[in-house]
């Protein structure tokens, strides 16, 4: 793509609309995704605080809730049906809007062209559409808070028949319809994004950038996009059938239902089939959430340890392994649906095998840190936090993957604790690591370090205080999504734990104020960044800080080496950027750097002899 010469440039008039709103520049679209993602995250966090208040003090009245929520909190108490809406919309926003669109949308858009040496995405127009479909999806989802019957409340997995019968509960009415419309738009957005990412990575790399010279971030975004392309259409198929059941009277998921005294005419369908279609997307979806965060952590940990990533090839193969395995494990969400135990055994084995590539990644991160020249930047702390959460949440995954244990733990707080650590907190920490690390690349300024440290430590400690105790509730058999712990005698002893968890959640939420202030203040008033503030090797730091369309003035840099030449023995600096030719680093070249180029090896040998380097 280096066919562009500066002579071809022509004056392009940018209006406010074309620059900030209907922008087709990948860097601006990345900012749009990031800021929308942050706003949605704040909303979803607010929802979680509301239901945490209900869980901690189920009998207490908070008149201020009624002031703000009106009929949803009559008498200052969250209503049971609204409680269900809160957990449903919290899950939907966090999984799809924050950790899928907010994470992939931001960093794939920002980094794919910049780290690969491309002028922009393969289709900037589709890229723009992708953002605006996402924006519409967010708006429609939020609009369901302003309708008479309230938002969808069948849980983020919207299992039928609850979701398929508009009259089942108030949240199954218009709120559920809006949920489905919003998700269809969201999937369209995701597909447009994912198709663009894969196409750009395969077709538009700069000269010298072969697949094995790509940073691990790009590998992660690439495989994430492939997962999305292969799994989201199945959700669309499932959603279409659900819409027909709801609105046209078909019986894809419905059979033998009595509502009140009325026997419904639907016969022959099966709600289990929805679960199959949903989890065929749903399980890959959790890897869509965590894999970009893993890629970001690999990059950030390597840069800030001043060491090459340990086991680059193993990191890539483990990502590929996770990608493939993630398609054959969906049944582990369905062990209690009356599944044939033999089939359950198959899903159990495939699930447990995923522990292998996950462990490879974890050990490689730890080995990269080992004896590194570590720089504890805020980004580095958040990347290490990801590793911590991934370990503590991943270990309980081995429990839950066992059908024999899962039948006891299914739908309890143990599951809630597990996935909030392994894909919730871990992915959010990966995203925050990315924000701190690439903020200078996005806005040309640095975020404040001290606020970053405050943000990290409070969030890290509080996240453990919130989610760790929930394991014990689960082991005791406390089910998720229950409205009030006072209703059941065996759950009452956990009320005090809920108070602790809620306070920890409130403190964690307050810590995000430090982040929000830091983020928005630094956009305008932060310290000006140099071009390569972290002394990193990848191509995005060779582009000028000024925002230009096309990323590099003149020629796009050529790539000569992999992205992890940190602290290379014999080199003058502890980093060598990817666009530095081997001829400029004669003192540090290794035999394998030449990849079988005999001529170059001869030149190196001659240089070594001349400079009396003993082999």
């Amino acid at each position, binding site marked *: 793509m280096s066919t562009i010469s500066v002579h071809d440039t022509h004056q392009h008039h940018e209006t406010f609309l074309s620059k900030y709103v209907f922008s087709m520049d990948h860097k601006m679209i990345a900012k749009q995704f990031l800021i929308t993602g942050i706003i949605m995250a704040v909303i979803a966090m607010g929802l979680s605080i509301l239901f945490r208040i209900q869980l901690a003090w189920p009998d207490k009245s908070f008149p201020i809730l009624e002031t703000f929520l009106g009929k949803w909190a009559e008498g200052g108490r969250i209503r049971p049906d609204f409680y269900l809406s809160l957990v449903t919309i919290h899950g939907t926003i966090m999984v799809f809007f924050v950790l899928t669109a907010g994470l992939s949308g931001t960093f794939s858009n920002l980094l794919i062209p910049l780290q690969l040496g491309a002028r922009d995405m393969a*289709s900037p127009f589709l890229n723009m559409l992708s953002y605006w479909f996402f924006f519409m999806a967010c708006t429609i989802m939020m609009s369901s808070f302003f309708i008479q019957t309230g938002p969808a409340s069948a849980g983020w997995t919207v299992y039928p028949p609850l979701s398929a019968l508009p009259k089942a509960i108030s949240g199954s009415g218009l709120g559920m319809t809006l949920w489905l419309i919003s998700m269809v738009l969201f999937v369209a957005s995701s597909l447009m994004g994912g198709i663009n990412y894969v196409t750009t990575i395969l077709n538009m790399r700069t000269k010298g950038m072969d697949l094995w010279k790509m940073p691990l971030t790009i590998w992660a975004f690439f495989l994430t996009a492939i997962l999305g*392309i292969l799994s989201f259409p*199945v959700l669309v198929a499932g959603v279409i*059938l659900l819409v027909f059941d709801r609105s*046209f009277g078909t019986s894809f998921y419905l059979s033998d239902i009595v509502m009140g005294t009325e026997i419904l005419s639907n016969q022959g369908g099966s709600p289990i089939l929805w679960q199959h279609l949903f989890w*065929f997307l749903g399980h890959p979806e959790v890897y869509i959430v965590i894999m970009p965060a893993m890629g970001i952590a690999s990059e950030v940990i390597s840069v800030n340890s001043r060491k090459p990533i340990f086991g680059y090839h193993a990191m890539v193969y483990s990502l590929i392994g996770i990608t493939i395995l993630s398609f054959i494990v969906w049944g582990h969400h369905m062990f209690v649906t009356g599944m044939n135990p033999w089939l359950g055994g198959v899903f159990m084995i495939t699930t447990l095998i995923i522990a292998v590539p996950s462990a490879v990644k974890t050990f490689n991160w730890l080995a990269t840190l080992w004896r590194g020249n570590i720089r504890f930047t805020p980004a580095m702390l958040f990347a290490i936090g990801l590793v911590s959460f991934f370990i503590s949440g991943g270990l309980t995954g081995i429990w839950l993957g066992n059908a024999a244990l899962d039948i006891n733990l299914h739908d309890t707080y143990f599951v809630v604790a597990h996935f909030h650590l392994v894909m919730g907190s871990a992915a959010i920490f990966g995203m925050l690591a990315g924000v701190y690390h690439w903020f200078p690349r996005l806005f040309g300024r640095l975020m404040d370090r001290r606020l970053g440290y405050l943000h990290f430590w409070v969030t890290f400690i509080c996240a453990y205080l919130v989610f760790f105790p929930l394991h014990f509730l689960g082991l005791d058999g406390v089910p998720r999504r229950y409205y009030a712990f006072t209703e059941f005698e065996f759950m009452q002893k956990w009320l005090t734990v809920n108070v602790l968890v809620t306070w920890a959640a409130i403190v964690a939420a307050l810590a995000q104020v430090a982040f929000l202030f830091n983020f928005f203040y630094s956009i305008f008033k932060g310290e000006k960044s140099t071009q390569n503030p972290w002394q990193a090797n990848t191509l995005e730091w060779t582009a000028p800080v*000024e925002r230009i369309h096309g990323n590099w003035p003149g020629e796009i840099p050529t790539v000569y080496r992999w992205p992890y030449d940190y602290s290379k023995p014999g080199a003058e600096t502890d980093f060598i950027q990817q666009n530095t030719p081997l001829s400029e680093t004669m003192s540090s070249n290794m035999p394998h750097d030449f990849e079988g180029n005999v001529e170059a090896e001869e030149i190196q040998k001659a240089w070594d002899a001349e400079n009396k380097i003993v082999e």
Partner: protein
Amino acid sequence: MEFTTAQNVIFDAKPKKFIVWLFVVSSTIMFGGFTSYYIVFAASKGKGHGLVLPDMFMYSSLVLVTSSITLFLASRALKNGEISRQRLFLWATLVLGLVFGYMQFSAWSALYQSGAALVNNNAAISMIYIVSGFHLLHIFAGLCFILNSLIGISGEKAIYKQEIASIFWHFIDILWIYLYVFLLLNS
């Protein structure tokens, strides 16, 4: 300043065609979702749709295959530089596509009159409407691609437009044959 001027990027068709291919992949998977539903449903209930499919589906399949041939002829005409022949065959494809759409509607009406309606307690029968309906939506998109090629027939992107129309149209042709054979075999 030089940095702020937009660069006039030369049009590169290769990545854009790749986008169409990936769309084909994701669309295939959506239909894979429908047919998987059908297979699991039929296996667990021990019954499929149990119908003799209306003959109209066979005739419409023939029309769709013919439209693929006319589109292929249009591509060949473009390669030989015969724009008027290309235009003729594109129009033929467009008309055949519309005829296909009409025939699908009459197949549905035949199904409906035989008592196999969309709203049905046998979800396998409802599925016939779903897959053929969503296939017809793809035909509509394919017609847009062909119109796009017709409009830009003498423009500089003519080859690219013809190519993406071909990729997509042949895909929906093969997709329909798959769906039709699937429904025939799983009655």
